[in-house]
């Protein structure tokens, strides 16, 4: 237990060290303010942007876009991935196309989406949709493929209807992978929207950073960058919380079995982010 607690703190050592060095250099006046403002200046800029309401307005715009595009990607991606997982030939037919599209970063498509959808919200939603779709589809499909064959045999032996197979086998059996895909998709959405706003937008956190750059307000740029990072962490934590707390009966299957003999196979856990 002690080791686990300490393990959590280990990750804070480096950023706290960096912050302390930043404070010391800022306090002693050894920083070039044109390149790196002191922590105090960044804090003042943060207070100003908060008081003014600018930060919240830009952050709100980004979040609305992210959740809108992500919801669309989840609505399309999860069923598509589950269907692909259930149909063994889908990998042969669609695998190469998916592999090609995964190599094209969302930012490379921004000019094309601007041409297709104009300069409103649509191209930004399209970028988020594209960014989030692939991790969601690929993980949902893999989740289905990873369901042990013996459970498929049980569903056949019990003559389960397609609906019952989906409800009692496919969805719960692949949920770990589906959630990993949603989590990755959300992270990709956030990164993509910030890039899209930097290139083609009049609002959003990405736009805030780009405006600060054109006005040579390095302190505001830092506020924007830090907000982007912290917001990403918060979104990730929110998805994990949903995963852990809103599916309690499914989560319980990850508990230790009382008996090895005759017990069912414990479900595999979702792959680590490094694996993906």
């Amino acid at each position, binding site marked *: 237990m002690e080791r686990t607690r300490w393990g959590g703190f280990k990750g804070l050592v480096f950023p706290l060290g960096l912050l302390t060095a930043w404070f010391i250099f800022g306090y002693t006046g050894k920083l070039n303010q044109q390149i790196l403002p002191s922590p105090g200046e960044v804090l003042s800029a943060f207070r100003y942007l908060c008081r003014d309401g600018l930060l919240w307005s830009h952050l709100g715009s980004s979040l609305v876009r992210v959740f809108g595009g992500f919801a669309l990607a989840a609505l399309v991606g999860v069923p598509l991935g589950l269907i692909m997982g259930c149909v063994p030939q889908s990998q042969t037919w669609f695998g190469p196309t998916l592999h090609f599209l995964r190599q094209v970063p969302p930012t490379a498509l921004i000019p094309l989406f601007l041409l297709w959808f104009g300069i409103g919200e649509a191209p930004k939603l399209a970028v988020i949709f594209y960014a989030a779709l692939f991790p969601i589809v690929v993980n949902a499909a893999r989740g289905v493929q990873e369901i042990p064959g013996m459970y498929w045999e049980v569903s*056949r*032996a*019990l003559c389960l209807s397609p609906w019952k197979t989906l409800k009692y086998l496919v969805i*719960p059996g692949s949920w770990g992978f589906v959630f990993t895909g949603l989590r990755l998709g959300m992270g990709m959405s956030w990164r993509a929207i910030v890039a899209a706003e930097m290139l083609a937008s009049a609002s959003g956190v990405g736009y805030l950073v780009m405006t600060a750059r054109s006005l040579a307000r390095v302190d505001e740029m830092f506020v924007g960058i830090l907000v982007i990072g912290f917001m990403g962490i918060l979104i990730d934590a929110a998805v994990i919380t949903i995963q852990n707390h809103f599916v309690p*009966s499914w989560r319980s299957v990850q508990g230790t*079995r009382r008996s090895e*003999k005759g*017990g*069912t*196979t414990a479900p595999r856990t979702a792959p680590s982010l490094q694996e993906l």
Partner: protein
Amino acid sequence: MEQPLLELRQVSKNYKLEDSKQELEVLTNINFMVQRGEFVSIVGPSGCGKSTLLLIIAGLIAPNDGECLYKGEVVKKPSLERGLVFQEPRLLPWLTVKDNIGLAGEYDEGLLKKMDLEDFSHAFPHELSGGMASRVALARALAPRPDLLLLDEPLATLDQNLRSKLQGELQRIWKDEGVTCILVTHDLNEALALGTRLIVLGKRPGTILHDTSLQDSMEKEAMKEQVLTWMEG
């Protein structure tokens, strides 16, 4: 003569070996009939195709040659009239005992009581002991009220005490529910203790070496040595 519940006519089964063009012959020329109310025990050495035979009867795999007839009709797909209990309980880990049992049939409180599981209806499979999990798997197969119960070494993973207890329960179910049973096992004692008829399969490719009805315990005991010789030979 009454129509048999099940009839296998010259059933053979081959498996294609992965990464090879060769085929593995698992069963060859299997012929037998099962009448309603029988408890047929099928014994044979490991790998002789006992489980494959059960999967063919269940309709989960098709034979390469011959046919399997259930109530006079060729078996082409699984049916709830033929309940199958696998070697491992294979309970869906994300469903409770109640939901696992109710997967295919109507959830029956009485069945849960009969199987001595009423206190565990809301438990998940990982919370059950091996014996309980086996009983849930049995209850799941019985829930749709099948006419034929196929048992693929359902007690093989349990210790001797639990095994004896569940053997008694199996016999009770067979008598009380009036269900016809086919038990596949490599344990001759279990086959003799439960069955009213014994089918002995030889080494791969499995063929029927002997098919006899078992009348009383004296006869069963007398057969033991003979069957062991067949199985080893």
